[in-house]
């Protein structure tokens, strides 16, 4: 081969050659493998979509002008795509209660309405009643131009008079779309939180059992196996039924008697803050689900650490005098991250299913906070009047769980080439 021939190769070919010659990093390989699994890619996009919905729930609320909590008993079980316009007497009733509740504000608004000639009532005291009967966008622009502290309340009132419900309304006349959007927050939030927390617990227990072996291993693995062999739902039902106030009350007493009054007061404050947000059912659920979902991770990690323990680089770091902590955290954890990731992804799907199951039984997320599970719980008694109420949350649970399962499967194939379907 002559020198001239090599020189005439195009720059493109050189670049191609270079890209072949440079070694790919682990994550580049995983990524290119992952892209082959079409269902997993679709799943990843779906998950991204739902996470975005969950994060931007308030923005969606603002954009649609409906919220997840306002009830409207006159418009229950509306089918999807229904537009609700309140009748004149409903509007006038509401403005009357507003005037009675805030007479001074109402008088000020009335004055401004008349001064700026925004409404032309027959009698001056009817100004607010005339305003409330205006078309929605006009009524809002009018109230925005006024100077009053009750602006938000009035805008909300007008918003409720005329609303569009993409997915209809539920048994209390609440907007199903907004409840589903906020339910996404709860369901995906609980799922991810539980999966991450149980990964941490499993990582700790699995690595302790695998690294130290002996009695520690026997005890921890017996515990893991016994917990794994239990029928999950009955156990979860029994634990979910306990009264959080009794447990935390006991905790406060315990802190009081053992660590003195300051510790008692401190615990009491924490307990109060847990109950103040109305979110105690979420904390309880996450805690309970964590208790029963770390076992598979622990077994996985134990197996991985058992085989890592025999490798030369561990021996090397031991010889160099590394502590057990350093060996486990610095040298072993990076090697188990890949299988852990798969297990966490699959765990999210399972946690969402269990959250939905418990909420469906009425023992999980408590109303009025919406979650897909408790929406199904409410809807199951109404399958004759409003079957669509039961379909929507169920379809969303299914979509999210199937996406996480596909994502986990795709990651598994990408990370561990031995399991690729051939």
């Amino acid at each position: 081969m002559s020198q001239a021939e090599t020189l005439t190769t195009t720059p493109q070919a050189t670049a191609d050659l270079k890209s072949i010659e440079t070694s790919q990093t682990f994550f580049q390989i995983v990524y290119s493998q992952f892209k082959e699994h079409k269902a997993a890619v679709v799943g990843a996009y779906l998950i991204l979509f739902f996470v975005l919905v969950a994060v931007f729930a308030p923005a969606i609320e603002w954009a649609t002008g409906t919220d997840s909590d306002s009830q409207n008993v006159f418009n229950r079980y509306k089918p999807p795509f229904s537009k609700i316009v309140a009748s004149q007497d409903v509007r006038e009733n509401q403005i009357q209660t507003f005037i009675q509740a805030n007479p001074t504000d109402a008088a000020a608004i009335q004055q401004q309405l008349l001064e700026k000639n925004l409404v032309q009532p027959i009698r001056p005291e009817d100004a607010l009643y005339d305003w409330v009967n205006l078309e929605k966008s006009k009524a809002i622009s009018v109230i925005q131009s006024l100077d009053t502290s009750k602006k938000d309340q009035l805008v909300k009132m007008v918003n409720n008079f005329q609303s569009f419900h993409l997915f209809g309304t539920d048994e209390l006349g609440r907007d199903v779309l907004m409840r589903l959007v906020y339910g996404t927050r709860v369901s995906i939030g609980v799922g991810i939180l539980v999966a991450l927390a149980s990964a941490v617990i499993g990582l700790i227990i699995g690595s302790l059992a695998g690294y130290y072996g002996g009695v520690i291993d026997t005890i921890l693995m017996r515990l893991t196996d016994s917990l794994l062999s239990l029928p999950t739902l009955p156990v979860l039902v029994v634990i979910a039924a306990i009264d959080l106030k009794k447990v935390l009350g006991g905790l406060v007493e315990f802190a009081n008697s053992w660590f003195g009054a300051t510790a008692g007061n401190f615990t009491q404050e924490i307990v109060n803050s847990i109950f103040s947000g109305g979110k105690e059912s979420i904390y309880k659920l996450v805690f309970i689900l964590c208790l029963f979902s770390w076992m598979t991770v622990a077994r996985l990690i134990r197996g991985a650490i058992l085989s890592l323990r025999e490798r030369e680089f561990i021996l090397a770091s031991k010889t160099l005098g590394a502590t057990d902590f350093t060996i486990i955290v610095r040298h072993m954890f990076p090697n188990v991250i890949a299988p852990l990731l798969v297990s966490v992804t699959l765990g999210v799907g399972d946690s969402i299913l269990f959250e939905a199951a418990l909420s469906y039984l009425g023992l999980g997320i408590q109303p009025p906070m919406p979650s897909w599970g408790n929406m199904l719980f409410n809807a199951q008694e109404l399958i004759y009047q409003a079957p669509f109420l039961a379909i929507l949350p169920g379809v969303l649970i299914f979509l999210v769980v199937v996406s996480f399962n596909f994502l986990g499967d795709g990651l598994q194939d990408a990370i561990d080439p031995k399991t690729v379907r051939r």
Partner: protein
Amino acid sequence: MTTYILRRLVQTLMVIVILSYVCFSLMTLMPGDPVELMISANPKITQEDVVRLRAFYGLDQPTYVRYFNWVGEIAKGDLGYSRTYRIPVTEMMGPSLKATFVLSMGSLIFSILIGVPLGIYCALKPNSKMDYVVNMFNFGGISLPSFFLGIVLIIIFSVGLGWLPAGGYQTTGMHYDSWFAEMLDKAKYLILPILSLSVQSIGRFSRFARSAMVEAMRNDFIRTARAKGMSEKVVIWKHGFRNALIPLITIVAISFSSVFSGALITESLFAYPGVGRLIYTSIIGNDFNVAMISFIISIAMVLVMNLVADLLYGAADPRISYK
């Protein structure tokens, strides 16, 4: 072998005892003990009455004392009364255990009959169109919440078409002329619950059957068997399937636990009078005696099934010896 079984039995028993204690103390943490319920039922009750009642029921004692009293009663054969139904717990357990057993076993057998052949078929024809479709179905099945499927089935078959009853155990007030008519009537009520309970395990069995069979067919002895000129039927069933059976038995046996646990939600949805529903309703209704007994019996059932599974495992794989 005998020592192995004995050791496992003792272990199982220990788990049950520990769990029963944990469960007992959890029950004390649930809202509303018997006396609190009496207080809410009777506004005229005085403080002295409350104290006297608490002492009478032994509620003023610490949890472990109450636990041992309770175990003592059980050892004497007294399981206590149900507060909701006003009948002895012993009378309630038999029928509900039977009902749950029929439901779980029916579902397990149904899912094995559907799932395993599907998985084997896909393993023998990997990457075919059928394989792809079944794989999609499996993922769908694993991810489908059984209660949602149950609601959809009710909407379609009971509300929409009116073919099958939406829930229950048998037609009320029915007089059966023969055992066959009785069975037929009860079977009608079982179809929807079994369907909704099975979908998840069908998906799981089919996936495991596929991977176990693919694994088994890769062995060298399969090639040897083919080289010897054996018929494909013998190669697949006698050499391949026999080896795929070992991991399959494990997963089927482990599934008994999950089918049993799923039965709780299916029974509640279809108002089917099994143990799962009994656990749920008794816990919701503060019926502690029933809740404790049904919980412990169902856990014991699952643990014993796991033990049976381990023994079966040895029967299927002669390489495994019990120490």
